[in-house]
């Protein structure tokens, strides 16, 4: 189903507004899935966008676009009726003949030819392209003023008579055109001009039918008169010029010199009957047709063509359409996860003070974990500044090594703290924490176990850990919930 261009524009703008609130990823997925179906049928880029719109937003008789279009049609019909009425009224007034004063040809020509041609000329000025308009001083404001008063705008006055839903849709369209005037300026201009031409056509149809009705069903007398200094010869020249387009094909439609001479007001009516002045009607109706209706019809066709071109241009230029085309035309590449990450441990605050300081020279038993570079008790004593009474290693090779290290401790006669020296740069893995648990079981409660995450210096010494490393070790020990297990705080500033 093809929806009207303006409805499509409204629907596209609405859809792109809605899309702007969605994630680019979901849009890419949706549009790429549609693209596979659209590519086969669609021709150019614009058709692809139209086809896309029809898929994501099927033609909905109650959708905003369709409602705006319906409101537009209703307002257009109203404008047409107004034009018809005004045309009929104008013709009825100008062709009025009550047997006393004949219809003044000059007045009919002034309104239905002179005034109309003037308005057509202004309309043509208004249709000039933007660059030309800028080049001619004063033309821009004149055009704006003309558009401000143009009958196309009168439609807005009819808004209040529309049902609420149609009125809202139409107001939304107006708001869209005004809000993004730079984008939709041309659409608005041609929409107004097309409306004005539609009014002009209706006006002329109304005027022509009324004039023809009066000619056919009443007895009209015509004359020409003006207080201006206009001789019959000059007037003949004017009307012959006006009749030039059809006089060759239809000589009866052109006034003769005789007719002009005979129908000059008052002298004429005295000596000639109304029937003798009758040939004027052919000329007048031909003038109304050729200089009134035909230019308006041509301008209406032109304005509608330009309107649909402006809509098509706006259709391509609405921000979001380029991105849409990109989504339709490029392969969808997805690399991110499709599921949320399952929560890891949150960084809870440390609940108890797990730091322990050992005075220099204090006695301890040392176990180096996982190959921390301390070779023996002497090296450990020197590096740590403590009296290392026994030395073992665990955390590397077979599990039996861990058991051996623990067994050595259980045989110790003193209750000096057990110092587990580990690499500060490695995280506290569960394997070490298991070992601490087993160690606790082996040495019994209340025996101090001190975990010493340290940095190894090149000269065989040790250094305190960086603050982030120390902090993760403190947190791990805190999680153990063992009041006799702590983290060693070596003398010196933590880096």
């Amino acid at each position, binding site marked *: 189903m093809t929806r009207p261009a303006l409805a499509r524009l409204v629907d596209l703008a609405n859809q792109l507004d809605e899309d702007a609130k969605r994630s680019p990823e979901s849009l890419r997925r949706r549009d790429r899935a549609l693209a596979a179906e659209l590519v086969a049928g669609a021709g150019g880029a614009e058709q692809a966008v139209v086809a896309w719109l029809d898929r994501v937003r099927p033609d909905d008789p109650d959708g905003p676009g369709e409602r705006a279009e319906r409101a537009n049609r209703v307002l257009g019909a109203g404008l047409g009726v107004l034009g018809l009425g005004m045309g009929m009224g104008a013709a009825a007034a100008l062709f009025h003949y009550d047997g006393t004063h004949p219809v003044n040809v000059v007045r009919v020509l002034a309104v239905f030819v002179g005034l109309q041609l003037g308005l057509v000329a202004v309309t043509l000025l208004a249709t000039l392209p933007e660059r030309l308009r800028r080049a001619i001083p004063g033309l821009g404001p004149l055009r704006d003023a003309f558009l401000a008063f143009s009958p196309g705008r009168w439609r807005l006055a009819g808004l209040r008579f529309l049902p609420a839903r149609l009125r809202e849709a139409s107001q939304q369209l107006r708001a869209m055109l005004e809000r993004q005037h730079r984008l939709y300026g041309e659409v608005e201009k041609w929409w107004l001009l097309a409306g004005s031409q539609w009014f002009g056509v209706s006006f002329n149809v109304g005027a022509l039918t009324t004039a023809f009705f009066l000619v056919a069903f009443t007895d009209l007398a015509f004359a020409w008169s003006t207080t201006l200094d206009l001789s019959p010869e000059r007037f003949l020249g004017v009307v012959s010029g006006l009749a030039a387009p059809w006089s060759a094909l239809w000589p009866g439609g052109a006034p003769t010199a005789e007719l002009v001479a005979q129908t000059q007001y008052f002298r004429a009516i005295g000596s000639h009957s109304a029937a003798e002045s009758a040939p004027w009607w052919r000329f007048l109706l031909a003038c109304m047709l050729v200089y009134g209706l035909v230019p308006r019809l041509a301008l209406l066709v032109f304005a509608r063509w330009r309107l649909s071109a402006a809509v098509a241009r706006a259709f391509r230029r609405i921000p979001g359409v380029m991105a849409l085309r990109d989504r339709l035309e490029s392969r969808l590449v997805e690399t991110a996860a499709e599921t949320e990450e399952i929560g890891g441990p949150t960084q809870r605050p440390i609940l108890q003070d797990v730091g322990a300081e050992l005075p220099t020279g204090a006695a301890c038993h040392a176990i180096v974990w996982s190959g921390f570079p301390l070779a023996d008790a002497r090296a450990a004593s020197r590096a740590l500044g403590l009296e290392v009474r026994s030395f073992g290693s665990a955390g590397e090779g077979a599990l039996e090594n861990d058991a051996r290290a623990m067994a050595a401790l259980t045989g110790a006669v003193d209750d000096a703290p057990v110092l587990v020296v580990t690499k500060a740069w*490695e995280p506290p893995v569960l394997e070490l924490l298991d070992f601490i648990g087993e160690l606790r079981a082996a040495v019994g409660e209340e025996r101090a176990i001190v975990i010493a995450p340290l940095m190894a210096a090149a000269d065989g010494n040790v250094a305190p850990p960086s603050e982030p490393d120390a902090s993760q070790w403190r947190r791990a020990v805190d999680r153990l919930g063992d009041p006799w297990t702590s983290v060693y705080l070596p003398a010196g500033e933590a880096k």
Partner: protein
Amino acid sequence: MSAAPLFAVVGHPNKGKSSIVSTLAQDDSVRIAPEAGTTVACRRYPMKLDGRVQYTLIDTPGFQRARRALAWMRERETTAAEHRAVVEAFVEAHRGTGRFDDECELLAPVLEGAGILYVVDGSIPYGPEYEAEMEILRWTGEPSMALINPIGSGDYIAAWRSALEQYFKIVRVFDALTAPFEKRLELLRAFGQLRETWRAPLEEAVRALEDERGRVHSRVARAIAEMLVDMLTSSATRRLDVGANASFYESALEREYEDRLRQREREGRRAVERVFGHHRIERREGEVELLDQDLFSSEHWYFWGLNRRQLVATGAAGGAVVGGAVDVGVGGTSLLLGTLLGATVGGATAWWSSGRLARARVLNLPLGGRLLRCGPTRDVNFPYVVLGRALYHHLRIAGRTHANREALALGQESEGEVSGMESWVERLPDDRRKALERSFRSLRRGESAGGAIEELTAQLEPILAEADA
């Protein structure tokens, strides 16, 4: 094998597995923290091409009890041919028991047939505790590769390489935090070498990623063009009574206008970041400054939407029609004096009466008033400043990996670079600079913005591509 290849990123805790996945999958939702054990369950990152999976990366938790797991396996080892079965039995026996949760979780995809990407930190010394992990992985019999990811400043890459080469046929260094796009593609290609049947899907994936990267420039160009057009055409307005003191409102209006510009620039930044798949960047950037001295204009407005110029034009046209009628009346002997005079009188009358009209009230509603407008800026340098900042931001984002979680400091640590980017216009070829200036001029004149976005996008695309190169 018809199924798309799987790659399990495994290793010791806290060695940058998630960073590698984040960078390769271009996904900044991956949780990365200095705390070990941030990843507690496998998470899959399928690389899809039009919905078809080309390969899947799997982020896994780190080994926590590798020695104990290996000890369990060794107790049940019979022959080398049985290694994989023992690993399967291990996972079967411990799944859901709470004892070896992390090991079961990380071994499951490997036993599913995933290639192994074993990650170590090359900035810390090698240690024997890794050997149990590597041994378990070897037992699975799946193709494997080791990645040395130097997280810190230390350099132990050589030691790691010689240790890793005993377990893995391919060992590569890959810095997840700084790896440029080409390096990432190179690594993906290397994944394809792990198994013959994986080569084709990986090659296609790499081609697709390269194409996608090529399209990024036009997307960024469009985002910047839309931002520029908005910033160069937007203004803040306030309707005032005719007698109101405009200066009283000026500072508030100027603030509103500046806020609007800054907000739009921030939106532009976000749009560019989204193009690159960055959704969580914290930015630190000095706000754009307006250089204009005079941003204000004021005009009358009238009930039916005309401004004073339009009213004058209407008056002049009306006067011209009346004067024209007189010219016709005298048979043209007035030499169009009537038209000229009519237009002058009509225009002048409209000008004179417009002020009064603005004060008139109908049903207590004002027929008109004054419209105070701040912006758009007419400063010819402003678009270049905005563009320079946008270009610099683009460069920083284009080179940023998704594993990088530091705040993006623009114009703070790198003043030199910023000023360099702002003067980029001087280095632009003449034709490009002229084309840009034409677009900016047409925007300053208030010509159609829709076309300007298209034009600017086309002009910026090659500039971005060159800057990127």
